[in-house]
């Protein structure tokens, strides 16, 4: 590139232009390659798992990794969208618990500690998604319209929602919901749970729109330089608000998957999840400063952590230690991602 830049203006020939273009393609390839930086790490982990444990590389185990990661994947997807527009939403982990619980409470009879409204199952499921959207909108309005600090507002929402969940259920576990509440995890297609297909589809659609639709490109513009986005006619506030609403909805759906996977709604559902969510997103190359990252990267981040968790379970790590080891591995994974991607995690 140096030669194209130092050549006197006016004397730059066609060949100089050509080299600039080829440099552009080189750049593009490099960028593509960066998206794949986690793939070797993922393969390495799979090989390692196969060597360490016979039952690791079996179809059953791999499907169980996917099934266990589906809910996390939905929340990582939600958080990644919020991060790309340059904002934060910590409260998603409480939405994972609160939204499905609200749907269950509306459906369950009073005898099973529900509200006693006994809505039909479909209405309850719809209520879950609407609850997620409304909670996202509340966060969005506070952060975008009223310009409150996203970190502390969504942290407060995290605590408030958790508290409301514990309060309304009086700490009890909700079970006995209609079959539809569990079907995402219990029904399978080609032996793989619906929740996995659903998460894969969500990632596919999100990744596609982010790359091939103006709406998706607007997220990057808003996160990269809001002033430039505004000057280009993008309604910056509206985009941010929309992303908060979508993120809330996706997290609620993730919560429903979790409910199906567990078979009940615990008052702790989703608790402490947000750390893993951020870790997966950052490992996957999503910038906390906004404007950077791809859905493919985020997905590899999720899978990486899913495999690690599975390996720890298979290795029969004492359950008292699993948290410390898991946290430590995430720390190491962050360092490795920093080294392999060769760029600062900002």
């Amino acid at each position, binding site marked *: 590139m140096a030669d*194209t*830049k130092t050549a*006197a*203006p*006016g004397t*730059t020939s066609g060949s*100089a*232009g050509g080299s*600039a*273009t080829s*440099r*552009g*393609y080189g*750049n*593009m390839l490099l*960028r593509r390659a960066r998206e794949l930086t986690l793939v070797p790490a993922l393969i390495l982990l799979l090989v390692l798992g196969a060597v360490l444990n016979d039952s690791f590389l079996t179809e059953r185990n791999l499907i169980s990794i996917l099934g266990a990661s589906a809910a996390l994947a939905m929340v990582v997807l939600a958080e990644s969208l919020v991060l790309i527009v340059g904002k934060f939403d910590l409260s998603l982990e409480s939405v994972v618990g609160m939204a499905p619980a609200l749907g269950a409470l509306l459906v369950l009879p009073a005898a099973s500690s529900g509200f006693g409204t006994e809505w039909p199952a479909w209405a309850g499921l719809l209520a879950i998604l609407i609850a997620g959207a409304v909670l996202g909108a509340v966060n969005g309005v506070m952060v975008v319209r009223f310009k409150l600090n996203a970190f502390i507002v969504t942290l407060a929402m995290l605590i408030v929602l958790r508290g409301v969940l514990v309060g309304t259920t009086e700490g009890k576990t909700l079970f006995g919901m209609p079959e539809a509440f569990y079907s995402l995890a219990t029904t399978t297609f080609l032996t793989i749970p619906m929740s996995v297909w659903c998460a894969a589809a969500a990632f596919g659609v999100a990744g596609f729109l982010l*790359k*091939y*639709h*103006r709406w998706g*490109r*607007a997220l*990057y*513009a808003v996160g*990269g*330089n809001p*002033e*430039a*986005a505004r*000057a*280009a*006619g*993008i309604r910056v506030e509206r985009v941010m608000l929309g992303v908060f609403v979508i993120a809330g909805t996706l997290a609620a759906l993730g919560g429903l998957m979790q409910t199906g996977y567990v078979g009940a709604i615990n008052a702790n559902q989703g608790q402490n999840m947000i750390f893993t969510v951020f870790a997966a997103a950052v490992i996957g190359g999503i910038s906390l400063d906004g*404007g*950077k990252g791809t859905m493919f990267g985020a997905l590899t981040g999720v899978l990486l952590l899913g495999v690690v968790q599975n390996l720890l379970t298979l290795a029969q790590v004492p359950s008292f230690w699993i948290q410390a080891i898991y946290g430590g591995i995430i720390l190491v994974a962050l360092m490795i991602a920093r080294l392999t991607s060769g760029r600062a995690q900002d």
Partner: protein
Amino acid sequence: MSATDAPPRPLLAAEGITKRYGTTMALADGRLAVLPGESHALVGRNGAGKSTLVSIVTGLQTPDSGTVAFDGEPAPPTADRDAWRRKVACVYQKPTVVPGLTVAENLFLNRQPTGRGGLLSWRLLRSRATELLDAWDIRISPEAVTADLKVEDRQMVEIARALSYGTRLIVLDEPTAQLDNREIERLFARMRALQESGVTFLFISHHLQEVYEVCQTVTVLRDARWITTESVADLPYEGLVEAMAGEAAAGRAGGGPEAAARPGPVVGGPVRLAVRGLTGARDAFTNVSFTIRRGEVVGLAGSSASGKIELAETFAGLFPPAAGEAELDGAALPFGDVRAALDAGVGCVPRDRHEQGLVAGMTIADNATMSVLDRLGRFGFVGTGARRNVAGALIERLDIHAEGSEQQVGALSGGNAQKVVMARALASEPKLLVLINPTAGVDVKSKESLLSRVDSAREDGTALLVVSDELDDLRRCDRVLVLFHGRVVAEHPAGWQDRDLIASIEGVHRG
């Protein structure tokens, strides 16, 4: 200005523009007439009203009175951004591109070409971008990531984007401020090429030399008023400088009775600071050599991009230079280490008291003694009594109006806050005192008292380097060195005329 047979209709005409912010008259009589196809310079010293006029003719602000017209038609209402975008575009110093996206996408942000099903076609985007860049002969790869571009390439991307909206009038707001000489040459070559293709430029710059290089017409503003609009060819350097500085200022002598009362330079006194061949990182300044004697006050002037701040901050230990050396009282001055510079006897009043000068939430005593705490106690502990005494003495000496040494600095007025900064610089009893914009944003009375400290420091034998945009600060100096694009281009002994100094600051070399 007399009417000829068929005067060309101006592409942009602004007449009788006034704009007032609160009690400040930002623009009392703004006029501008830019003819199609020319490069028109808009010049004036800081506060002359340039930015206000630009924001009005680019539709960012509505004037209190006056009219703006494009090609004879009245300007669209301020709210109609799309209409404005087709009339005029401004390339600001602050980038309005998204750094993480490619050049192609930035060119067509939020109007990317779509293919089937409303989906974006990257191929079409690339070919449109290539087409646009080729049409204006801008050699930048559409696939490059915008963050990796050089400043002048980024400016070209913004210009290309503006042209694609249909405007042929581009406002360049100090486009050369962040460029080095070679980059400026390349930018000018591109400007001339675009001009030949029919683009009209309104060029705002602090460097008069550049006006003569690329512009055909110049409009001068001074004190919020239109002064003149003339063909560059008919206006010699002196005339332009006089138009900018004003008759009154030009006639004012640098000396004056109060100046004569001060002690003159200590001719022949021992050299305190000797600088030889100092060159900054990224060529912010090159091959600077000078000496300052005991009790001598040397001024350093230059435009904002001249490198004067970088040079001064180098002495304070903020940046290591690329080459060259400096000696303070015969000992080599340590570079790149503020602590070491302080220990070597350099005091500094930094460029911006809010950013680098003060911790607003701490008390006057804390702030004033921050850099000398090791003298106030042992093993890192700070003796409260000793600190209070030192701070009290400084408050007294500098005439800081405060409730006491324990008052928070954030509550002080600008002038008193600056005195605290000065107090801290003096607390270490420096051999060399570097003052950067020492009177920026302070009231007249505080200014006098701050400048009188310069005189008393001089009597103590301190060597002083005063870097300032304010002519009043520089008037106290025994001599003023002028930096232009990183080089010392002139030295004015005390008693200089305002217009001579301004001329050399603006890069006008008078024969």
